[in-house]
C-alpha cells in the first residue's frame, strides 16, 4: 500500500514538473513589441529617448501557453524536437548539450561534496562549544552578501595578486572551454552552502548537544570525539539529508551566477543562448532538472553511506 502511495506521489511530482517546465519555457515569448496592433493588452507609453516609437505596442501573448506546448508535441511526433538553430546554423541538441552538462557537473559535484563535508564538520565542531556572539553576526551577514559581490571582490583580489606575482597564480576568468577558471568558482559555489549548513545545522546541533542521551554519554566519560562521531555526526547527516533540497537550490543558484561571471560555458550559457526557441528551452530545462535529480540521488547515497560508516567505525 505504501509503495503504491509513494509511486503515486512520484508520478504526481513528475507530472507537475513537466507541466511547469512546459509553462516556464513559454515565458520568453509571453511579451513582445514591434509592429503596431489593435490587439493591445498593455498601455503603451512613449519616452523622449526613443523617438519614433509611437508606432510600437507591447503585446501580451497568453495564447502561447497552449500554442507552444502543442507545437512541441507535434515536433516530438515528427522527431524534430531536438533540432534548433544557432544563428542561421542548424544544430542538434543531443550533439551539443552533453558537453555543457559535463562542464556544469564538473563544478556542481565537487562543490556539493566540499560543502557537505565542511558544513557538517563545522557544525559538529561548533555544537558542543560556546561560540562568541560575533560568529552568529558574521554568519548572518554572509547570508545577505550576494554571490556576485563575493565573486567581484575575489576576482579583483586575485587580479591584484596575479599582477604582483607577475603570472597567473589563480585564474580569475575563463578564456576558452579548455582554459577554464577552477579554484575560484569552486570556492564560491561551496562557500554559500557551507555557510548555510554552518548556520542552520549548527544551531540545531547545539540544541541536540544538550539532549539527555548526549549528556548521559558525556557523564559516562565518553570522549568528546566519540560523541561527535557516534552521536552528533549521524544526527547531523540525517538533518542534512532532510535539507538536501535547500542545499541543492543554493548550489544551482550559485551555478548560474558563477558560470556567467567566470565565463564558463556550462548549462547557463547554453540555456540563455536561445531562449526564444521553445523546444530548445524545454529540452535544456529538462536537462537542468534531470541534473538536479541525479545530483540529489548521488548526494543522498553519499550521506547515507557516511552515516553508516560513522555509526560502525570507532574513533
Amino acid at each position, binding site marked *: 500500500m505504501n509503495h503504491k502511495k509513494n509511486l503515486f506521489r512520484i508520478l504526481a511530482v513528475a507530472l507537475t514538473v513537466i507541466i511547469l517546465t512546459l509553462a516556464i519555457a513559454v515565458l520568453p515569448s509571453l511579451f513582445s513589441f514591434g509592429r503596431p496592433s489593435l490587439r493591445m493588452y498593455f498601455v503603451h507609453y512613449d519616452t523622449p529617448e*526613443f523617438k519614433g516609437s509611437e508606432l510600437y505596442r507591447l503585446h501580451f501573448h497568453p495564447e502561447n501557453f497552449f500554442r507552444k506546448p502543442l507545437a512541441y508535441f507535434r515536433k516530438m511526433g515528427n522527431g524534430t524536437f531536438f533540432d534548433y538553430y544557432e544563428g542561421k546554423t542548424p544544430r542538434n541538441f543531443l550533439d551539443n548539450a552533453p558537453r555543457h552538462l559535463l562542464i556544469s557537473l564538473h563544478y556542481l559535484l565537487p562543490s556539493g561534496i566540499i560543502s557537505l563535508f565542511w558544513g557538517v564538520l563545522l557544525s559538529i565542531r561548533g555544537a558542543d562549544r560556546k561560540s562568541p556572539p560575533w560568529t552568529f553576526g558574521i554568519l548572518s551577514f554572509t547570508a545577505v552578501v550576494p*554571490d*556576485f559581490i563575493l565573486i567581484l571582490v575575489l576576482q*579583483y583580489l586575485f587580479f591584484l595578486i596575479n599582477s604582483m606575482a607577475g603570472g597567473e597564480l589563480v585564474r580569475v576568468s575563463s578564456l576558452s572551454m579548455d582554459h577554464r577558471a577552477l579554484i575560484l568558482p569552486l570556492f564560491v559555489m561551496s562557500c554559500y552552502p557551507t555557510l548555510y549548513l554552518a548556520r542552520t545545522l549548527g544551531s540545531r546541533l547545539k540544541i541536540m548537544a544538550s539532549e539527555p542521551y548526549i549528556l548521559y554519554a558525556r557523564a559516562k566519560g565518553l570522549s568528546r570525539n566519540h560523541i561527535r562521531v557516534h552521536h552528533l555526526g549521524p544526527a547531523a547527516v540525517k538533518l542534512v539529508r532532510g535539507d538536501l533540497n535547500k542545499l541543492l537550490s543554493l548550489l544551482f543558484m550559485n551555478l548560474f551566477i558563477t558560470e556567467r561571471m567566470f565565463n564558463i560555458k556550462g548549462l547557463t550559457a547554453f540555456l540563455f543562448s536561445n531562449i526564444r526557441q521553445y523546444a530548445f528551452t524545454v529540452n535544456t530545462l529538462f536537462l537542468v532538472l534531470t541534473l538536479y535529480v541525479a545530483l540529489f540521488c548521488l548526494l543522498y547515497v553519499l550521506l547515507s553511506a557516511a552515516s553508516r560508516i560513522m555509526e560502525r567505525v570507532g574513533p
Partner: protein
Amino acid sequence: MKKFNFPLTLGLILLLPILVAAVAGPFLAPYPADHTESVRYEETSEGRVIVAPPSPPSPDYLLGTNKKGHDMLTLLLYGARWTVFTIPVLTFFKLLLGAAWGIRRAFRPSNPLATLSAGPMNALPLVVFLYFILAPVSNNFPFSPMILVFLFGAVITIFGTPAIALSLEAATREQMGQEYFMAAQAAGASGPYLIRHHLIPFLKERLVILFVTETTLTLNTLGQMGIFSVFLGGTIETFDPRTFNSRVHEWAGLVGQSRFNIFSDQWILLGPLTAYIVTVLGLFLLSEGLQQRYSRTYRR
C-alpha cells in the same frame, strides 16, 4: 539604563546619506544626466596630451567617468531614486500579499504551500524566471521604464510570496494558540477584529524585520539580473561595440554594466559597487538592530 543599539545606529547612519541621495540626487548631481566628458587637449609636463574618457577620479569628476564620458557620481545620484524608492515599494506589495495569504491560510487551512517550493523545481532560481520574461523585451524597450518595473515586481511577487506566506502562517498559528486569543475567539470576536486587535500588534515587529530582509533580497535579485545585463527599467543595448547599459542608472544595474572593469579602469566599478555594498550592509545592520530592539522590549 538603556543599552546602546550599535547595529541600529550604524545602519541608520549608513542609510541616511543614501536616502538623501535618492530624494535630492538630481539637485546634488554636479552635472546633468546626459552630460559627457569631452575629448580635449591638456598641457602637462610632458607637453600637450589628448585626454579622452574614461578618466580617473579628479576634482572635476570625483568618481571618475566611464567609457562614454558619463560622470559616475552623477549617474549614481540620478539612479539612487530607482534603487531606494522602487525596491522597497515592490517589496512592500510582496509582503502585503504574503501576509494576507499567510494569515488567511492560518485561519482556513488548505493545501500545503511547502510543496510549491520543494522538489526539482528548486534547480531553477528566480533569476531564470526574471530573465525569461524580461530579457526578450528589456533591451531598447521603447516604452516607460515603469512597465518593466511592474513586470519585475509581478515576477518577484509571484515567486516570493509563498515563502513569506509560509513564514507568516506559522507565526499566526503561534499567536492563535495563545490563551488570550482563544478566549477572544470563544467570546465571539470576528475574524477582522481578531486580526486587527490580537494579531497585527504581535506580528508588526516581525513584519518590519521581514520587510527589511526582503528588501535586501530584492536588491540582491536585481544585482544578479544586472550580471545577465537585464536591468530594472530597461537596458540600452548598443552595437559595434556591443554594450549593455542601464537606462535609469539604478545602482545594481550600474554594478552589472561595469563588472568587466574589474581588470581595467576600476574606478568605473568601484563607485557603484561601494554604493551597493553600503546599502546591503546598512539594511543588514538595520534588521539586526531592529531584532535586538524588539527582543529587548519583550525581555522587559
